């Protein structure tokens, strides 16, 4: 882990973000129907439109607009939402924890479930558990998150009212949030009823996102384990007389986890930008929903802000995953 490497990565990140923001900027200005027209009453005159355009700086040539925007962004100012009349950064920070909590929960579920099923699948090959695992793997890949979401809503919310299907917490609650993570906020207040409610509300949306990822984890774990099992050190572990459970869970898994974590990490990055539909279905007040609303109302500053933040998260996650890999792989860490 040397300085030169870190510097190169940071430079890489910055240029990527530049690229993303430029592309977004350009695409959005090509958009038909502009927010100005949407904001004004139908009787608005051409003059009104021009005035409002100037007010938002939309009359200047694109490169200059970009320059101004960039200057502000560097200072941390993402501008104000045209439609919602609120500071963009504020809006994003309000919704970000909701999406983060959802994605973290989904990733945790996928890891735990996937590693367990995948490993048991290898240990008890060709048994019922193995077949079920394979089935889940195939289904998880074929049924996208929003369809899982709809299935859960249908069976667990509509037909049988087992779990809540809307919002982050029971509507009777007004939660004073500190971190924005409901599970944390209720816990630190010892508000166990609130914690329970928040937990229940999290289950279905998290599982909807988790199942496709679980399928991926199962596949990766199985293929990694199959590779690792062929190695001599696994034979030696058996020679030592260790039970099959120890051989697989301690010796084999330790090595198979490395590529798994890498892939899951990358998927986490993808997931952050992909919560849109699940948030709509479960009325989850997160970034995805915000983004879609912004796009439909052509709220340029908001769209730019959200896209940039999501791209930033994606790039950061990739960096963390790479660092994690070097830490987890003793050959690199203790080279």
């Amino acid at each position, binding site marked *: 882990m040397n300085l030169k490497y870190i510097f190169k990565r940071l430079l890489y990140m910055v240029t990527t973000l530049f690229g*993303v923001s430029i592309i977004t900027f350009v695409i959005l200005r*090509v958009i038909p129907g502009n927010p100005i027209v949407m904001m004004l009453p139908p009787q608005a005159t051409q003059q009104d439109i021009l005035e409002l355009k100037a007010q938002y700086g939309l009359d200047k040539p694109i490169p200059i607009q970009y320059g101004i925007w960039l200057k502000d962004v560097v200072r941390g100012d993402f501008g104000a939402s045209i439609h919602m009349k609120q500071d963009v950064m504020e809006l994003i920070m309000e919704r970000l924890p909701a999406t983060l909590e959802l994605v973290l929960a989904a990733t945790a579920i996928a890891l735990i479930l996937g590693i367990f099923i995948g490993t048991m699948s290898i240990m008890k090959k060709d048994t019922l558990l193995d077949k079920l695992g394979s089935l889940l793997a195939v289904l998880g890949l074929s*049924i996208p998150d929003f369809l899982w979401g*709809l299935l859960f809503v249908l069976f667990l919310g509509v037909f049988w009212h087992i779990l809540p299907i809307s919002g982050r917490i029971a509507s009777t609650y007004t939660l004073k949030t500190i971190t924005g993570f409901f599970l944390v906020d209720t816990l630190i207040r010892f508000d166990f009823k609130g914690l329970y409610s928040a937990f229940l509300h999290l289950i279905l949306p998290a599982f909807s996102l988790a199942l496709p990822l679980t399928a991926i984890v199962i596949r990766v774990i199985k293929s990694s384990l199959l590779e690792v099992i062929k190695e001599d050190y696994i034979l030696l572990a058996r020679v030592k007389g260790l039970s099959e459970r120890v051989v697989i869970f301690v010796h084999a898994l330790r090595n198979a986890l490395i590529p798994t974590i890498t892939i899951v990490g990358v998927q986490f990055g993808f997931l952050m*930008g992909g919560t*849109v539909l699940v948030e*709509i279905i479960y009325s989850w007040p997160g970034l995805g929903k915000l983004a879609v609303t912004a*796009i439909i109302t052509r709220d340029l500053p908001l769209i730019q802000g959200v896209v940039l933040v999501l791209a930033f998260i*994606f790039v950061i996650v990739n960096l963390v995953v790479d660092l994690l890999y070097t830490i987890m792989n003793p050959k690199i860490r203790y080279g």
Partner: protein
Amino acid sequence: MADKKKERFLQIKRFLTNGKVLFGGFILLLLVFTSIMAPYIAPHDPNEQDLTATKKPPFWMEGGESEHLLGTDSLGRDVLSRLLYGSRVAMFVAVVGTFFAGLIGVTLALLSGFYRGAIDNLISRFVDIWISFPPILLSIVLMAVLGTGLTKVALAIILVDWTRFCRVIRGEVFNVREKDFILAAKAIGLGNLRIILKELFPNIVPLLTVLVTLEMGIAIIVEAILSFVGLSVEASVPAWGQMIALGRLYIHQAWWIMVFPMMCIITSVLGLNLLGDGLREVLDPRLKVMGMK
């Protein structure tokens, strides 16, 4: 020469006996069939509204009738007919989207992998930046820019998913280009273009085939996602995703409006994925043989 024929025969036999290929292939053929034959086999006009017979359940439930086998939606339109016509949208999007995304992605991948160096750097950078865009949001933004319509949807899919082809194929190209026959071809002095087309490309075809089936499933899903947000085809065109989005509003009274198109999507994607899996097994039989030291 007889050996080659025998090998070809064995290959075909492997294809036809693989369960996944059979099932997935069947689904694909079914899809092709319905999309072509929809106008001839659909019992009703998919847009024909009948406000006297709205939200009728499927025929096996109480209140259902044989006139509308799978019931009607909130405007009295026949669900079955809409499903059949919806397969046309699905197929169009899957075939056109996949083909062009593949064309762009594979071409860039071949160039990137074969020439390496500056060209590879440039293309890879471009792909990296493109991938940093949350794909769902990107497709939504594109649709907002392009406007609604079937061809626009296909275009959005192409613009978002070409990177998948590019990345995966590029990796494979790197694998293949180190092989001896490439070096041999270069040594003989064959032109680069010829090497790429005649030596390199045929060797990535197996992986490409698998990727194509995968992508077709993804295209169908993306169309559904876009429909959900209201940014897909025009309202007058029946599409599965749209049916789901509309059906969701009546989930309590008429769940079938949403469920049947869901099942169509799931079956299609499942079939395509299994087909891809099966093809991978057949084309790379080394994976199935037990190794021995």
